[in-house]
């Protein structure tokens, strides 16, 4: 029986016989020659690929299943926001910011309002600031739900995704009650909020605070310590703190690498200095740490919302800035001043002071900054948006090269690259 087997090898592949015949030096030379002449295959991942959750193209040079080189192409949904902003009155730029990181539009809206408020020197009442904090933290939760559940989907855990994703829906119902829109919210106004929260909004917020922790902890139990999930995500797509800083990372991706930078703490805005919360940090900067940082941030956001409700100040929900804040409709019909302001705001004829401001908020993905140059006209002279996605996505090739293709997909979803913010 055994003799037959050897004979078979001999017939099918005489190279093997040469190798075993004792000429070791020759075998090695052949092996190294093969390595040099290795053919890589090119894989075009994207622009629309079901696994990339957005319009991203990466041309991957593959050695089997290992990525040797990755070359990202971006700009597929570039809409020239910075150019558009140069022709729009300030209140009409808010809807543009909706479309940056559309998973957490309200944070972008608030960031823009605060930039303009800084320029015109407007002090927003405490109540409006607290209402804004509630909205911003709800959108942070919505943003992190998207990211963390999608990481789970990309590791094959569909159940957790379907289970937790309906809570994003509940957050959208709260937004709908506050401003009438769900995804691209255009929420708030320059100077405060467009209206106070109504009874239904409050009851939805209370219901969310009561029921969401249960769902989140069930998701946590389902996924976080799951053996398959941990094996897939630990040491996948890691970046060191030094590299993350060199690439100008901010937000959860930087914190996962161990740097405790958060705009809410470093440069507090909208009364964040009055809230008590913890900034979670990771150690390895890998997919698992990014997931964990976002999980913990959701719990912290819940705590911030509870504090905001408990300490909610009374008072007005908007500042007295008649040039920017639409007057009540009944005044428009009965008072001269109100009619003039209504007309000027709607027609975009409000002049703003000259100056340069930079204002940053902690968006879902990190420091979202607005650098605004005003020359005293009715539109910005120049508006530059510091978009965290655009800045940290350039580190993506260095994070996936040398890893498996399936890890590259996970790395992208755990970085939470949002095409709208990337391409602007």
């Amino acid at each position: 029986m055994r003799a037959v087997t050897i004979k078979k090898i001999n017939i099918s592949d005489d190279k093997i016989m040469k190798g075993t015949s004792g000429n070791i030096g020759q075998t090695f030379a052949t092996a190294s020659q093969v390595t040099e002449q290795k053919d890589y295959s090119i894989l075009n991942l994207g622009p629309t690929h079901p696994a990339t959750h957005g319009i991203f193209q990466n041309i991957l040079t593959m050695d089997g299943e290992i990525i040797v080189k990755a070359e990202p192409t971006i700009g597929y949904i570039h809409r020239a926001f910075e150019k558009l902003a140069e022709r729009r009155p300030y209140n009409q730029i808010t809807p543009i910011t909706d479309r940056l990181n559309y998973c957490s539009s309200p944070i972008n809206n608030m960031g823009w309002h605060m930039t303009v408020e800084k320029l015109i020197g407007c002090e927003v009442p405490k109540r409006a600031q607290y209402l804004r904090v509630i909205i911003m933290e709800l959108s942070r939760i919505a943003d992190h739900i998207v990211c963390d559940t999608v990481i789970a989907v990309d590791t094959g855990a569909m159940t957790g995704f379907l289970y937790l994703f309906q809570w994003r829906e509940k957050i959208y119902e709260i937004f709908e009650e506050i401003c009438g829109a769900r995804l691209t919210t255009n929420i708030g106004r320059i100077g405060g909020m467009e209206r106070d929260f109504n009874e239904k909004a409050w009851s939805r917020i209370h219901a969310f605070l009561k029921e969401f922790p249960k769902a989140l902890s069930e998701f946590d139990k389902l996924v976080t310590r799951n053996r398959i999930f941990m094996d897939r995500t630990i040491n996948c797509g890691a970046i060191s703190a030094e590299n993350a800083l060199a690439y100008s990372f901010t937000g959860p991706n930087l914190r996962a690498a161990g740097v405790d930078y958060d705009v809410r703490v470093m440069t507090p805005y909208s009364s964040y200095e009055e809230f008590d919360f913890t900034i979670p940090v990771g150690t390895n900067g890998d997919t698992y740490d990014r997931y964990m940082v976002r999980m913990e941030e959701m719990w912290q956001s819940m705590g911030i919302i509870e504090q905001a409700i408990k300490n909610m100040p009374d008072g007005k929900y908007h500042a007295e800035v008649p040039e920017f804040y639409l007057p009540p409709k009944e005044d428009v019909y009965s008072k001269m001043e109100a009619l003039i302001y209504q007309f000027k705001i709607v027609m975009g004829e409000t002049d703003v002071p000259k100056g340069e401001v930079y204002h940053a908020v902690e968006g879902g993905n990190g420091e979202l900054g607005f650098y605004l140059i005003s020359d005293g006209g009715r539109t910005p002279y120049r508006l530059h948006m510091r978009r965290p996605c655009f800045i940290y996505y350039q580190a993506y090739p260095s994070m996936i090269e040398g890893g498996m293709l399936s890890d590259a997909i996970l790395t992208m979803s755990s970085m939470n690259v949002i095409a709208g913010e990337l391409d602007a």
Partner: protein
Amino acid sequence: MHHEIHPSASPAAIELHNHIKDALISSFGDDITGSQIDYDFPVFSVAKNRIHDVLEFLKNHNDLGFTFLTTMCGVHYPGNAGQEFALVYQLHNMEKNYRVRIKTFMADKDLNVPTATDLWLGANWMEREAFDFYGFRFTGHPDLRRILNMDEMNYHPLRKEYALEDAGRDDKEDKYFGR
């Protein structure tokens, strides 16, 4: 040297501004062409040929330590003869929470600027964006290609000479929009 302080600047901002100003002036002298505080933000203008040295100096300074590049962008001032283009860098010292804005102005005839990619890896795409939209040529950049617009595009769209509106329309005159 042009010097200006915004009325709303806090004492802490003025102190930080003076601190950075002293450090910069003692090392670069007349190459620092302007200093001001814009709403609590220290701003310095630097001669273009020294921009890389200034950024490197601020990054490696023991006390100031602006090790983080927050963002960077171009600006076009067509009416500013001889200084039509500006590049704006924003640096951050995360430990002490110092921020600074560094500007450099240049004429439209010569848009060559030394790259900052050797100081910050993250400057790569920021510079590609500034090249794409304004046409700055970053000398020493490893891969200076367009990034958001298509490669075939033959102009730099954020320059002020390119109007946003369709030239055939007369219902959206600039004067109605404050420009």
